[in-house]
């Protein structure tokens, strides 16, 4: 039987890029998300494009209590789990409004930890599986314009690295993806530099390749590697004065 990929937060543009690539490579796909309308359209699309085996299930990243039941009632246990959900939010609003701040932290960190703990325990028992976490370059250094989002992603990146360390001897692979800019809804009104901006399709291709090659951490566009080395190495005394 073909291997199954579970995509958490499957209605986003990046998730669609990833789902299309895995479906094209013959995987069966389980789409999990909150908005059934969107999932059904994506499900139809994957079926037409790739004659694939696709199903959609309701999943709310913030409904922590239900994560265990959600995972254990899936029609098919996945071989690959990709956690794509996240929320950029509004930094300024979140600075003064705890509810929106909490939503950012929960969506990007707590929710991911909650569901991936359940997945990890299952994979550990089964002695196989791949866990992919879509984190962010924003987690590498906090900047005034998005440090709430960034700090949650930093937590997520650390979580994934710890999880990788734990799961290695159980034959489970953990991949951390820091996409950089991707042409998605999240940045629809941002001007982003062309060479640093990937398409959702590229994300799908890079993630697939990294899953196959068992790479630990990737940027979607390799150019981000030197860019982030520079950003990480700006002395804090200088960094704090910059408008970023």
């Amino acid at each position: 039987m073909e291997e199954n990929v579970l995509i958490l937060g499957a209605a986003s543009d990046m998730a669609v890029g990833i789902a299309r690539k895995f479906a094209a490579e013959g995987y069966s796909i389980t789409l999990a998300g909150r908005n059934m309308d969107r999932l059904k359209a994506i499900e139809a699309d994957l079926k037409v494009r790739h004659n694939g085996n696709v199903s959609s299930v309701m999943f709310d990243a913030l409904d922590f209590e239900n994560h265990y039941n959600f995972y254990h009632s899936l029609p098919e246990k996945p071989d690959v789990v990709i956690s794509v959900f996240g929320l950029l939010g509004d930094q300024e609003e979140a600075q003064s409004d705890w509810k929106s701040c909490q939503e950012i932290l929960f969506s990007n960190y707590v929710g991911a930890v909650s569901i991936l703990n359940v997945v990890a325990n299952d994979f550990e028992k089964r002695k196989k599986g791949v866990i992919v976490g879509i984190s962010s370059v924003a987690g590498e250094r906090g900047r005034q314009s998005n440090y709430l989002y960034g700090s949650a992603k930093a937590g997520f990146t650390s979580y994934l690295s710890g999880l990788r360390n734990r799961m290695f001897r159980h034959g489970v692979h953990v991949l951390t993806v820091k996409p950089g800019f991707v042409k998605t809804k999240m940045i629809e009104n941002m001007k982003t530099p062309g060479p640093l901006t990937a398409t959702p399709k590229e994300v799908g291709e890079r993630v697939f390749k990294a899953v196959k090659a068992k790479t630990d951490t990737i940027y979607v566009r390799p150019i981000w590697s030197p860019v982030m080395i520079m950003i990480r190495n700006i002395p804090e005394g200088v960094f704090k004065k910059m408008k970023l």
Partner: protein
Amino acid sequence: MKKSISNWNNYPVVEAKEISFDNPKELSLKLTHSSIPHGNGRCYGDASLFSEVVNTLRYDKVLAFDETHGIITCQSGVLLSELLQIIVPRGWFLPVTPGTKFITVGGAIASDVHGKNHHVDGSFSNHIVSMSVLTGTGETLICSKNQNSDLFWATCGGMGLTGIILDVKFRLKGIHSSHIRQKQIKAENLDHVMELFDQNTESTYSVAWIDCLKSGKNFGRSILMLGEHAGTDETPVENKLLAKEKSLMTVPFHFPSFVLNGFSVKLFNALYYAKNYKKEMNSVVHYDGYFYPLDSILEWNKIYGKKGFVQYQFVLPLETSKEGLKNILTRINKMGMGSFLAVLKLFGHQDDLISFPMKGYTLALDFPIREGLFGFLDELDQVVADFGGRIYLSKDARMKKEIFWKTYPHATEFQRIIKKYDPDNRFNSNLSQRLMLKV
């Protein structure tokens, strides 16, 4: 936040706020200001430009494919290139395709695109079973030739002015092979190529490349390219239904404007004509090279430099085509304003509400933007209008409104229908303002 956007010819450039959607429910909430739908930005002008644009590229799901009858249902933001990947391996092809596959289905309808088979199959709208449109009244209406037909006809070729095309169901064309049997015939001059078009109306696909800078007895020398979908036995490759994605070349930067001049274009034309060393050449080629020769050179528009270019495409009624083409080609000849790609085609009959094609000859040319060009094109517009022809709105960035109103016979009716479906002008574009389409 606003960003600079332009279409394929880099002219005009506007500052616009861009919104996008992947779900119609979310879209209606976002439409707070007047806006215009914008697909992959491959039109040549200002039809899809405004201070607020609705990018449809995220609305790109293919919803159903009836492989037995060749009927596909998709969201409007899906690119023809993506559809080809899906349908060709299963024995189907686009019923009508323009010279690039990098356009959205919504764009194909809003421009009511035509292809090399117009004289046989008509334009894109001819193959639509039905579609849904989010109109200016906030309703989502299904329309077809029989249902809400006024909305249907005002949407086909309507430049996005009735609203946002959402889901589209259309018919495909059955094929046995992804290859095209091609015949290229050299024509010594304009009379000759028109004669050849006339003799080859049976041919499914026909189009001619024409040298606009040649005078004397070779005035209007051309290469006529005919094509048929090849059968399985003629297809040279093992996999008969291959939708190949060629490796793509990219033009790395905007060429300085001096690169294109009368001399370099003449040289290009001479080489292009000379490559066909025989009078008639037959071959079997993959559809990608046949229909989309320029798609393999990504961003070829940069050849024209940062100032951009305009594409000029007009059609003349059959009765006046010969005289009109001679008149216009002579003017272009005199100005020395040649173009790499001048394309001539004989359209079949069509008399829709606002679509461009009509029975007669259409000529499309590129002109790099330089001093004096717009004045010259205004002169050409006048000639086109005097001969009873018209200009293609998808390629237009500068026509004067008087010319439009004079040359599109159903313009008033079109205006009345868009007013009915968009009474408050929720949809508006630089083009509709320039031509005074929205009142």
